């Protein structure tokens, strides 16, 4: 190692240490990504929980014939996949923060899962889950199978928002925007809220549907009622 020190000093002669702010910016950037992906994971988890909690397990026989077919058709797989994907991205970024390596994978993932569920719970309580019902039918095929199932009047499933009601009929705009008259003379009615109803029954005419059962579109999520007051 002849004159190695001289060679090194020669090499750095015209160099300068990189500014400290550059390293800080990089570290904050990685932290920001970790937090951002954690929030995305929580959003995805909120939608997953909303769809899971509101899934129509009690109608599985009518909807799909068998429990397994119903599970395959209606389980919100895509949101579970998004939740896990964002969780992994958040983990990957956290591991690349300055001190991320000090923590084991098990500890980081466990803590992240707790945070994701907590935030998902808060988001659901603020009604975030409902945004998934606002997407159009084409996208619903991927993101909200439940909506697709309940927009099938030929098979006896209908869902939408009530615009007017009296003793015998409801006027309903379904989630695709189509107007319907719903006959409720022989229907079993469960108290519902503003955001919509799901109806089991029979299509009588092009825009007339005879209801057998009318139920709220979604269940109240834990403290949601208090938050929405």
């Amino acid at each position, binding site marked *: *190692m002849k004159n*190695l*020190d001289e*060679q*090194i*000093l020669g*090499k*750095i*002669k015209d*160099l*300068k*240490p*990189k*500014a*400290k702010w*550059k*390293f800080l910016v990089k570290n904050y950037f990685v932290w920001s990504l970790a937090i951002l992906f954690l929030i995305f994971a929580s959003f995805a988890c909120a939608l997953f929980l909303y769809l899971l909690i509101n899934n129509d397990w009690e109608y599985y026989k009518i909807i799909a014939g068998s429990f397994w077919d119903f599970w395959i058709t209606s389980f919100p797989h895509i949101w579970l996949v998004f939740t896990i994907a964002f969780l992994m991205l958040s983990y990957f970024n956290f591991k690349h923060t*300055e001190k991320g*390596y*000090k*923590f*084991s994978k098990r500890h980081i993932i466990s803590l992240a899962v707790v945070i994701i569920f907590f935030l998902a719970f808060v988001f659901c309580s603020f009604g975030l889950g409902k945004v998934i019902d606002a997407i159009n039918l084409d996208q619903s095929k991927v993101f909200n199978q439940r909506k697709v199932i309940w927009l099938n009047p030929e098979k006896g499933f209908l869902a939408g928002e009530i615009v007017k009601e009296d003793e015998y009929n409801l006027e309903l705009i379904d989630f695709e925007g189509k107007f319907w008259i719903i006959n409720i003379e022989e229907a079993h009615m469960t108290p519902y809220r503003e955001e919509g109803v799901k109806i089991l029954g029979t299509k009588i005419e092009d825009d007339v549907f005879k209801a057998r059962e009318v139920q709220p579109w979604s269940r109240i999520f834990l403290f949601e009622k208090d938050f929405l007051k």
Partner: protein
Amino acid sequence: MIMILSEFENKSDEEVTKLVLQDQKYFLILVKRYQDKLYRYISRISNFNEQEKEDILQDVFVKVYVNLNSFNPDLKFSSWIYRITRNEVINNFRKYQRRPQIARIDPEDDFMSRIRSGLDLEKEIDVKIDAGHLREILGKINNKYKEVLVLKFLEEKDYKEISDILKIPMGTVATYISRGKKELKKKIEKYEKFR
């Protein structure tokens, strides 16, 4: 400007890094303190030739200087510089498309006596393995265990330092050391049997 290195003997690495940020000439102190240690470390974890090792070492010191502001004083400076060295060696493995291996164990390394107490081998087998055979045995051990064994028994780093150098949790360091020792013990016993 002539600098008398002995004047800075009492200064810690961390204090010297602060001086380097004020004046480049103080970098010589760090070079003098670490060039031999790092050269030995590179030799222990790679099989590069002399010239390649010197090139790697030069690149390590250039990187240390350029990235000096990223040094976090929560960390030991030696851990930080070893980490940079290891990364540079790995980069060069990729560059030269070589596989990591134990290339050098000097008789004066006293590796065996250190690891023998760690493995509790004294009572079980009379280990008289020369450096060449030990190198061969170590070469057969899983690389991740080998890395921690080198840092623990050759570089004499503690768990915290190994964790900071390899950027793995301390629990993982403990696991790797334990598994590495078991694997090494098994290989040594096998060697004894067929000797």
